[in-house]
C-alpha cells in the first residue's frame, strides 16, 4: 500500500463524507462546512493521484488544486453571505420547507 494511495482513499472518503453532510443536514452553515470538506477531499485525491510520478512532483495538479482552492473560497464566501442574508431577512438558518426538521 503506497502512501499516495492512502491519501487518495482518504480523499475519496472525505468527499463522500462531505456529500452525506451536505444532503443530511438542514443548517446552512453545516451544509457549507460539508461542501468545504468535500472540496478538501477532492483536492487531496487530486494531488495524491497525480503525486505518484517518480522524482520531482508534477506541478500541474498543484497549480490546478491551487485554482480549485481559490474557487472554493470564493464560493464559500458567497454561500456564507447568502446564509447570513437569509438569516437576517427571514430568521431562518435553513432552506424553506424544512422548518420542522430544524
Amino acid at each position, binding site marked *: 500500500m503506497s502512501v499516495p494511495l492512502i491519501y487518495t482513499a482518504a480523499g475519496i472518503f472525505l468527499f463522500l463524507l462531505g456529500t452525506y453532510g451536505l444532503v443530511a443536514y438542514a443548517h446552512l452553515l453545516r451544509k457549507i462546512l460539508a461542501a468545504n470538506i468535500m472540496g478538501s477531499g477532492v483536492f487531496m485525491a487530486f*494531488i495524491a493521484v497525480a503525486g505518484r510520478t517518480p522524482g520531482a512532483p508534477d*506541478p500541474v495538479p498543484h497549480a490546478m488544486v491551487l485554482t480549485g482552492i481559490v474557487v472554493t473560497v470564493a464560493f464559500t464566501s458567497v454561500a456564507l453571505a447568502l446564509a*447570513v442574508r437569509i438569516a437576517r431577512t427571514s430568521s431562518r438558518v435553513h432552506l424553506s420547507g424544512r422548518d420542522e426538521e430544524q
Partner: protein
Amino acid sequence: MTPGPLLLFDLLLPAVLLWLAWRSLTSSDLFRAVILFIAFNLLLALAWVRLEAPDVALAEAAIGAGVTGTLLLAALTRIESAAGRRLSRPARWRPAALVLTGTALLAAAAGLLWSLRLLPTMPGGLGPLVDRHLAESGVDHPVTAVLLNFRGYDTLLEVAVLLLAVIAIWCLDEAVPFLQQPLESPLLTGFNRMMLPILLLSAGYLLWLGSHAPGGAFQAASLLAAGLLLALFSGASLPAQWSGLPLRLLLVLGFLAFLAAAIIGPLTGRALLHYPPAWVKPLILLVEWLLTLSIALILTATVIGGRPTGSRPYPPPASPAAEGRQR
C-alpha cells in the same frame, strides 16, 4: 523506503482528518463544528506537506488558518445574532431513505476505490514537459510557471471568480459591522504594531519566493489580507471618500492588468496570453504584484461581507499594509 514512523504518521494523519471531518459534521453545536473545521484545515496543511505539495500547503495554511476561519466565525456570529444560537441536528430521515443513501454512498466509495487499482503504475504527468519549457516561461518555479504562463488562462478566470464573489456579496447586502466596537486592548495594539510590518514583509517574501520556489501571489495576498483583518479588528477603517470608486479600482486593478497583458497577444497577431518573449518576465512580475494587492483586498472584502457604505466605521481598512503596497 518509507521509515517506520513516517508510515505510521501517514496512517494516523488521514484517520485524524476523517475523524475531524466527521465530528465537524455531527457535533450538535455549530461553534464547535467551526473550531473542528479550523483544526481540520490545519492538519490538512500537514497532509499537503506529506504529499510534497508545498505550494498547496502554503495556500492552505494561509487561507485555512487566516481567512476561512475568520470568514466562518464572522458568518456564524451574524447568523446567530439574526436567528439565535441553535443546535443543529441531521434531518430526521425515513429509514428507507437513510438506508438508500448510505448504500449509495458506500457503493460509490467501493466502486471508486476499486477503480483506483487501474491507475497506471508509472503515470506520465506533465512534469517533464513543464521542466523543458520552464526557461521560456519567465519564472523559475514550475508551479508559478503553470499558474501564470502555461495555464495562465485558468488563473485569469480564477481571479474573475474572486472578483465575482465580491460583486455578489456586495449585491446581497451592505456591510454589517461584526464588531459594534473595536477591540480595545493595549496588548493588541502593540501586537498589531509589530505584526503588520512583519506580515507585509512576509507577504513580500512569499511573493518574491514564488518566482523560484514555493510561494506566490495568492499566498502572499492571504498574508496581506490577514494583516488587513488584524487592523480591522483593532478599529482601523477606510476613509469614506476612499470607499467608493478608489476601492473598486483597487479591487479590479490586478484583474485589469492581467486582462490587458492577455490581449497583447491577439492585438499583435498571437494567441491570447501569448506574451512577447522579451516582455515575459516584467509582464508576469507586474501582473503578479498587482494581483497580490487586489486579491488581498478581495479576500478582506469577502470577510467584511457587504458593500462598504462609507458612513459606517468598518469598511475595509486602510492599514499600513495596504498603503505601503499602493505606493
